[in-house]
């Protein structure tokens, strides 16, 4: 259920601050040392895959696990590096016009789709129009529609995006699902079947998908990035049960398992055949959310009281086994729009009690708390229940089916609950959809004209320095208004066989595998 988005190389090059640069270097260093070895060609990489894939058509993809495959079969118009910066991919360069309303992309030459057709400016135009056409009901339309007025072909290798307004987050969006380029010929020919037999320009060609069993991909010999990929085949094996997934890495039946629970990490670190990789900076955060436009939480002092009463360190130590970090706001540390001076709300029981009295509840109160019925969320809720009891706030826990949790929030059947989001490569990605009054994932009823104005203003600025200052202010204002109580930046783990070389996280948590190789 987590979404991700990206940022721009041009912007990065123009104004990436010292902070972002440090993060980038920190991420790049281990990768460089590994890349010093010569990659071996060949071999089959097997990944223990989480089920849930419905379609491999990226323009209709909703499930996180689908993107594991999409990023191998397809290329995006622009890419992301391990530091979350937008880098060239199918577009080798781009320029933004003076007024910020036109972006011109120069495309790679000699790129072929797996069906043998040519990738060119027409294909880009066709892909964008496919997403934008409301008849097609693509879930990827939301990030593009407010920005793009038209896509025109200047010449076979140059495509121009005409924008309705200057819109800096566009590039990052084009590194994510809206930016995937599918083969127009295959998509037209296969129609609804395209999601079962995807055709792209990516490093691996689709071979077979046995539903709920496995997806097989093989090396695309005509791949345009010379010398890549190193692997011959990639097999995603569906393993729904996390215990079985870990067993399979230990027995060598699969080479990599992701989505590993923190509680299993100490046990795995003792296995000499395995390597545990932790994602840094934290790619996800957890939070509590409520309806700020309905009683009882339309009371800011009450929201602040609860935020102050929560001990995030305890949550980290007890539930996350010491991994991760207490959250200050919606921006994970290490991202270029994260304010290092910002401390967040913090934990202070006396202040919490004062706020509670100020809110009109000197003797405390009780409220219904909806929780997804999984062991992980139930455990967290029980801990919160105990913490909030200290200021006399009682939680009546109501478990719901995880599959229904979000639709119940949208239908306003849920007032107070927990949530979790993944970082995207552009600040607008999460901040706009969650906290702008018009954001399509704003399910709290939060509306602060000042925040709306800052977010609108920041999205129209291409210059990183000025944008960053605006997002610093936005994060402080949002955190103080408490539409969400930010809990923790969570740790994410992958466990792999020792022979897997050059593994690297992109902070959207989706492995790319084109640089990865297997030691013989």
């Amino acid at each position, binding site marked *: *259920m987590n*979404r991700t988005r990206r940022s721009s190389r041009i912007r990065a090059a123009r104004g990436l601050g010292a902070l972002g640069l440090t993060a980038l270097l920190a991420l790049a260093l281990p990768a460089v040392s590994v890349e010093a070895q010569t990659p071996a060609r060949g071999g089959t990489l097997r990944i223990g895959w989480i089920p849930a894939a419905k*379609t491999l058509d990226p323009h209709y993809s909703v499930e996180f696990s689908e993107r594991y495959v999409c990023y191998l079969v397809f290329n995006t118009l622009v890419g992301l590096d391990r530091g979350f910066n937008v880098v060239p991919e199918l577009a080798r360069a781009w320029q933004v016009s003076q007024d910020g309303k036109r972006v011109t992309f120069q495309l790679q030459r000699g790129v072929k789709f797996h069906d043998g057709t040519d990738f060119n400016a027409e294909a880009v135009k066709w892909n964008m129009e496919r997403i934008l056409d409301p008849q097609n009901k693509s879930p990827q339309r939301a990030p593009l529609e407010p920005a793009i007025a038209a896509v025109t072909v200047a010449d076979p290798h140059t495509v121009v995006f005409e924008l309705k307004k200057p819109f800096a987050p566009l590039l990052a969006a084009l590194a994510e699902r809206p930016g995937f380029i599918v083969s127009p010929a295959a998509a037209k020919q296969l129609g609804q079947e395209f999601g079962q037999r995807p055709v792209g320009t990516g490093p691996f060609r689709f071979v077979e998908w046995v539903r709920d069993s496995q997806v097989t991909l093989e090396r695309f010999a005509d791949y345009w990035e010379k010398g890549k990929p190193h692997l011959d085949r990639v097999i995603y094996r*569906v393993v*729904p049960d996390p215990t079985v997934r870990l*067993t399979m890495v230990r027995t060598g039946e699969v080479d990599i398992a992701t989505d590993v629970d923190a509680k299993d990490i100490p046990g795995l670190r003792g296995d000499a055949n395995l390597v545990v990789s932790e994602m840094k900076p934290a790619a996800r955060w957890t939070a509590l959310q409520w309806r700020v436009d309905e009683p009882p939480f339309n009371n800011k002092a009450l929201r602040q009281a609860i935020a102050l009463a929560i001990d995030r360190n305890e949550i980290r130590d007890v539930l996350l086994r010491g991994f991760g970090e207490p959250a200050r706001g919606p921006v994970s540390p290490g991202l270029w729009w994260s304010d290092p001076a910002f401390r967040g709300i913090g934990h202070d029981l006396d202040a919490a009690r004062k706020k509670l009295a100020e809110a009109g509840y000197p003797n405390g109160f009780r409220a219904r708390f909806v929780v997804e019925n999984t062991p992980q969320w139930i455990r967290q809720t029980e801990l919160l229940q105990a913490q909030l009891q200290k200021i006399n706030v009682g939680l009546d826990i109501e478990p719901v089916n*995880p599959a*229904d949790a979000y639709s119940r929030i949208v239908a306003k059947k849920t007032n107070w609950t927990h949530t979790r989001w993944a970082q995207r490569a552009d600040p607008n990605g999460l901040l706009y959809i969650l906290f702008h009054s018009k954001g399509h994932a704003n399910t709290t009823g939060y509306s602060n004209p000042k925040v709306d104005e800052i977010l609108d203003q920041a999205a129209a600025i291409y210059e990183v320095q000025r944008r960053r200052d605006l997002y610093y202010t936005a994060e402080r204002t949002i955190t103080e208004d408490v539409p969400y109580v930010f809990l923790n930046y969570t740790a994410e783990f992958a466990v792999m066989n020792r022979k897997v070389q050059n593994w690297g996280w992109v902070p959207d948590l989706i492995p790319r595998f084109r640089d990865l190789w297997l030691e013989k």
Partner: protein
Amino acid sequence: VWVLILRRVAAMAFSILFLTALIFALMQAVFGDPVVIMLGRDADADTVARLRRDLGLDRPVHVQYADWLGRLAHGDWGRSFRTGQPVLGAIAARLPVSLELAFLSLFVAVVLALALGILAAVRPRSAVDAGISVLTAFGTAMPNFWIAILLILLFALHLRVLPSSGSVPLLDDPWGHLRAMVLPTVTLSIAYLCNLARLVRAKMLEALATDYVRTARAKGLRESRVLWVHALRNSVLPVLSILAVSMSRLFGGAVVTETIFALPGVGILLVDSILGRDFPVVQGIIIVVTVGVFATNFLIEIAYAVVDPRVRYQ
């Protein structure tokens, strides 16, 4: 027999109508909005509304149900909300795996249950009997997801003789296929096996104490003939009726087993479809399973008549 068949078909049709109507009724009362689940957290409201309209989910439930029933009458099972695949095709692709698992498990359960039950009954209150009783009590009491995990840890992780999970197509690699089916089959059969073995033991003990067995022995028949022909044939009847009852339970167990061992069967499809509120697929599976359970029960009734000449159908 024809009257019987007609009566069974009518009962089956009624069950299907009742079950599918129930699902439709529950769908808006209890379940979440399938469109929000399908489009996720990133879609805009306009796209959500458009898809809801296109799938006909904006209409009243009874209209949706009548429409679905009307199409079904014309042989159109519809398409999956989530994948766009034709429902019948999606189920047909999964059915062989589930059927194979069910029949293998049933076979293993019946054969071993008879063997263990008879063994225990022949020497009542012996060490063998006690051992079998303890084991079968244990097997009946253990939930099968737990048994599955224990089997995986033992055979895949420690002994490394069998794969942890997954399936291999029979035609690609018959041996690999069989190896992959061992743990799921054992997991699914254990509860039935243990239940049946206890039943066989009790019924055999009962039969061995009857007058006709004493008569048979008095006639000087060989003990093996007394056991296999006289006693067993009479104790097998209740076993058949238990089998009939457990067909639906077998399917329930298959859902869990398929999920843990990642076998791409109907069980996983059903769970996924329920979680994803994929109603056309859920309805399709309910029909297929209902027909399957009715058909097996019918076959077992016939088997009953074959085994017991006193049973006659009017």
